[in-house]
C-alpha cells in the first residue's frame, strides 16, 4: 500500500509541479543539488495564473492577475490520498483517516542534522558538497572576518574607556556575518537585528563610517539619533537597525513583497537570534512569507543565549529549523562557525528563494562568545571556561584560516600585516570620529516628518532660546 501511495504521490507531484509558475530564470533546471528530490523543480510554460493544490490546501497564486482568471484550473484531487473510501473531506483538502488514536510526538527521535564542510582542523570533510569559492573571494572573506574581529575588540575597548556609550560585539559569529554576506548580491535587501555589522562591512561600509555612527557625530548617516551599532545604509541596501527584537521580520516580508511586485531578481534576507524566535513577529512573518510566497531568507543565529536566557529556557523545540516545516517553509541547519558551510547554504537558499519565489529558513548554530553587550557581564550566568572554550577551540576565524592556509593562499606574515593595518586604520578612524563635531541642534527636529511642521519649529525656537540664555548648562561641542 505504501509503495503504491508513494508512486502515485510522486507522479501527482510531478504533474502538479509541471503546472507551477515558471521560475524567474525560466530555465526549468533542477534548483539545486542540496534538495534531496522531494519536490521537482518548476517547469516552463505554465499559465501565469492558476490555482493548484500544493501540500494540503488550495493555493491562490499571487501573480497580480485578476482572481477571475485564477479560479479556472481547479485540480480535482489531492494526490496524497490512496483511495476515496479512506479519506475525509474538509476545508484544506482531503485527509486519510485512521481508526487508532495516535498523537504526533512532541519531538523526533533524532535532532535535525547539521550541514558542515570544514572540520576543526580546517580540512574539508570527505564527501562534503559545497559551493566553491575562488582564491580572491576566499581571501576577501578571511580578511573581512579578521577586520570584524578587530573592529569589535577596539570599539569594545573604546566603550570601556568611556569614549562611546555602548557597543555590542559579534564575537564568535564572524563566519555567519561575512560568509552569509558574501553569498548575497548588492540588490538583496538586508534587514539585520543588530549583531550583523559584518554584512555591512562586506558591502563596503568603511571603518570611518562605523566609527561615525558609534560616536554619533555629524557625519553619521543616522544624524546622531540612534545608539551605537544601529547602523543603516540605504545605499548599501542595509535597513537601519531598530532595537525591538524581531520587528524586522515582517519588514523583510514587506521588502520581499515589494521585490515581487517589481519582479526583481533579488531577495530579502533578515537576521535574528534564538531569542527573537519567541517573538510573535517571528511566527507571523514566517507564516506570511509562506502564504505570500515571498522571497525571503530567514537567517537565525542560534548562538545559545538571549542575554542570560539559554535556549533551553527559550523554547522546547529542536532548535529553530524544525519550525520551518510547521509553516510550510524549507529549512536547513548549518554549522554557523563554518564559513564555507554558511556560504554554501545562503548561496543555495538565495537561489531557491528567487527562482522559486519562496521563503527559506536557515538556522546557523553558533555560540555568542562575547557578552550580550557592554551592559552585560555574561560570567554572571555562564561558566568562564565554557566561554574560553568557544573563544579558542571553536573559533570560526582560526578554523577558516587553517583551510585558507592549507590551500597556500595565506601566510603568517600576511596575517600580521593585515591585523596591524586594520588596527591602525581603526584607531585613526576613532580619533577622527571623536574629534568630529556632533550634529547641530536643528537635527533634533528634522526628519520627524518630511518637512518640519510649525509645532516642531516652535519647539526648536524654544530650545534655542533656552540655550542662548543658559549657555553654561549646555554642552559646548554641540552646534546650536
Amino acid at each position: 500500500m505504501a509503495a503504491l501511495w508513494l508512486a502515485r504521490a510522486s507522479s501527482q507531484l510531478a504533474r502538479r509541479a509541471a503546472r507551477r509558475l515558471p521560475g524567474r530564470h525560466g530555465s526549468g533546471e533542477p534548483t539545486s543539488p542540496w534538495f534531496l528530490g522531494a519536490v521537482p523543480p518548476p517547469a516552463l510554460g505554465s499559465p501565469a495564473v492558476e490555482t493548484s493544490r500544493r501540500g494540503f490546501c488550495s493555493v491562490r497564486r499571487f501573480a497580480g492577475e485578476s482572481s477571475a482568471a485564477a479560479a479556472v484550473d481547479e485540480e480535482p484531487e489531492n494526490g496524497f490520498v490512496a483511495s476515496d473510501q479512506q479519506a475525509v473531506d474538509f476545508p484544506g483538502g482531503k485527509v486519510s483517516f485512521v481508526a487508532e488514536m495516535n498523537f504526533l510526538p512532541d519531538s523526533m527521535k533524532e535532532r535535525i542534522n547539521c550541514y558542515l564542510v570544514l572540520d576543526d582542523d580546517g580540512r574539508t570533510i570527505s564527501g562534503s558538497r559545497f559551493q566553491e569559492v575562488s582564491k580572491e573571494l576566499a581571501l576577501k572573506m578571511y580578511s573581512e572576518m579578521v577586520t570584524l574581529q578587530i573592529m569589535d575588540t577596539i570599539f569594545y575597548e573604546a566603550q570601556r574607556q568611556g569614549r562611546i556609550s555602548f557597543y555590542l560585539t559579534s564575537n564568535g559569529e564572524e563566519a555567519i556575518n561575512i560568509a552569509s554576506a558574501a553569498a548575497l548580491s548588492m540588490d538583496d535587501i538586508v534587514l539585520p537585528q543588530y549583531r550583523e555589522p559584518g554584512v555591512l562591512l562586506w558591502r563596503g561600509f568603511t571603518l570611518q563610517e562605523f566609527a561615525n555612527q558609534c560616536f554619533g557625530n555629524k557625519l553619521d548617516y543616522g544624524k546622531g539619533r540612534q545608539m551605537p551599532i544601529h547602523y543603516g545604509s540605504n545605499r548599501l541596501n542595509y535597513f537601519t537597525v531598530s532595537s525591538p527584537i524581531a520587528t524586522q521580520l515582517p519588514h523583510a516580508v514587506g521588502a520581499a513583497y515589494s521585490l515581487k511586485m517589481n519582479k526583481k531578481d533579488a531577495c530579502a534576507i533578515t537576521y535574528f537570534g534564538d531569542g527573537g524566535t519567541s517573538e510573535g513577529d517571528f511566527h507571523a512573518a514566517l507564516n506570511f512569507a509562506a502564504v505570500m510566497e515571498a522571497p525571503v531568507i530567514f537567517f537565525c543565529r542560534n548562538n545559545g543565549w538571549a542575554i542570560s536566557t539559554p535556549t533551553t529556557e527559550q523554547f522546547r523545540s529542536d532548535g529553530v529549523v524544525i519550525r520551518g516545516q510547521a509553516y510550510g517553509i524549507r529549512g536547513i541547519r548549518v554549522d554557523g562557525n563554518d564559513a564555507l558551510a554558511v556560504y554554501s547554504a545562503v548561496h543555495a537558499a538565495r537561489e531557491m528563494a528567487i527562482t522559486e519565489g519562496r521563503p527559506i529558513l536557515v538556522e546557523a548554530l553558533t555560540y555568542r562568545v562575547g557578552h550580550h553587550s557592554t551592559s552585560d557581564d555574561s560570567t554572571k550566568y555562564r561558566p568562564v571556561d565554557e566561554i574560553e572554550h568557544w573563544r579558542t577551540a571553536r573559533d570560526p576565524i582560526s578554523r577558516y584560516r587553517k583551510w585558507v592556509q592549507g590551500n597556500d593562499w595565506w601566510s603568517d606574515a600576511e596575517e600580521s600585516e593585515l591585523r596591524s593595518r586594520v588596527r591602525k586604520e581603526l584607531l585613526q578612524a576613532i580619533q577622527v570620529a571623536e574629534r568630529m563635531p556632533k550634529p547641530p541642534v536643528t537635527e533634533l527636529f528634522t526628519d520627524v516628518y518630511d518637512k518640519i511642521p510649525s509645532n516642531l519649529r516652535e519647539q526648536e525656537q524654544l530650545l534655542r532660546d533656552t540655550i542662548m540664555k543658559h549657555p553654561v548648562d549646555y554642552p559646548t561641542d554641540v552646534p546650536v
Partner: protein
Amino acid sequence: MAAAASSALHAVGAVASAKPRSAAPAVARRRSVRVAAAAKGGPGSSGRGRMVARSAVAAKADEAAAAAGSKSGGHELLLFEALREALIEEMNLDPTVCVIGEDVGHYGGSYKVTKGLAEMFGDLRVLDTPIAENSFTGMGVGAAMKGLRPVVEGMNMGFLLLAYNQISNNCGMLHYTSGGQFKIPIVIRGPGGVGRQLGAEHSQRLESYFQSIPGLQMVACSTPYNAKGLMKAAIRSENPVVLFEHVLLYNLKEKIPDEEYICCLEEAEMVRPGEHVTILTYSRMRYHVMQAAKTLVNKGYDPEVIDIRSLKPFDLHTIGNSIKKTHRVLIVEECMRTGGIGASLRSAIIDNFWDYLDAPIMCLSSQDVPTPYASTLEDATVVQPAQIVAAVEQICQ
C-alpha cells in the same frame, strides 16, 4: 508638510475668492468653503499635474444644496464608496500604491471599502493577509521603506493595538533614526469609534493612544467629501498617516465633485460659521454637534462649528482665528476623558490662545469606562446632543 501646504493655501485662497480665514459674517450661513491644497509631486507624478482648487459645499447628510460649487454636477455616493473611489483613483495613478489587510481582497473588506479592487488590480496589489496585525503593519513598513506606498487596513481600529509596536517603534521612528535615508509613506486606516453595541474591544478610540507618537500624522474623516480627499492626500503624503474612519459613518450619503480633488491633511473644516462659541469636534461627534446646533439656533445661540479633521497636528490657524472671534470654546469628542484628543487640544489652546478666552475651555468626552454592550448604557457613555446644548448654555452665560 506645513510649509508646502500653507503656501499653496495662500495661492489658492486668492484664486478661489474663498472666505477669508478671519471670518467675516457676511457669508451664506450654510455654505462652507474648503480649499484643496496643491498636490505635491509624488512618485510617478509626471502625468498628474497640479490640482484644481475648489470650493465645495459643507457636507451635512440632510443638506439639499449639494454640489452647488461643482461645475459638472457631481455624483452622489456613500462614505465607504468615496473611500473606495479615492483608492481606485490613486491606485490607477500610481502603481506603487497597494492595499494590505485582512479580507480586503475577494471579500472586499469588512466595510466594503475595498470591494472590487482585487478584481481590478490583482491579488498581489490588494493583498489578503493572515491574522497578525503587528506583522502586516510591519510588512507595510518594510514595503514602504523599499518604495511602495501601502494602505494598511485594520479591520477595526481596536485591532491595530496589536500593531502598536510597529506603528510606534518603526513607522513613526525609522525616517528619523535612519537619518532620513528611509521614508515610510504608509497609510494606516480602519473603522474605529463607538458603534452600535459592538462591545468594548470593538469600540476603541485609538487616536488617544497614537497621538503621542512622533513622526505620525493623524486625520479623521467625517463626510464622503473629506473621506475621499483625505484618503488621497494621505496616500500621497511622504509621512506615515493614520486615517480614522468611524463605524457608524460609512453609509452617509453626499454628492461630491466629479473632478479630482484632495483635502489638505493639516486643515480643519469650517462646518458652520458663528459668533458665540467655537465648538471643536471631529468624526461622528460632528453630527451630534450639528444636531445640537439646530436646537441652539432655535434658542438664539450662534455656534461656530469646526470639524478639526487633523488630529495630529492640530490646525491651530483655523482654530485660533475662531477663538479670537468667539472667545469661548467647547470641545466635543468621543475619546475618553483621560488622555484624549480633547485633553491635548485643550492644552494647545491654553498655550496659544489664553489671552483670547473669556471662559474656561469646556470639554465633553466619554467617561473613562470600557464601552458597555447594553444600548442604554452605550448611549450614556457617548456625548449626546442634549449635553452639548447644556454645555453651550453654560459657557455662554
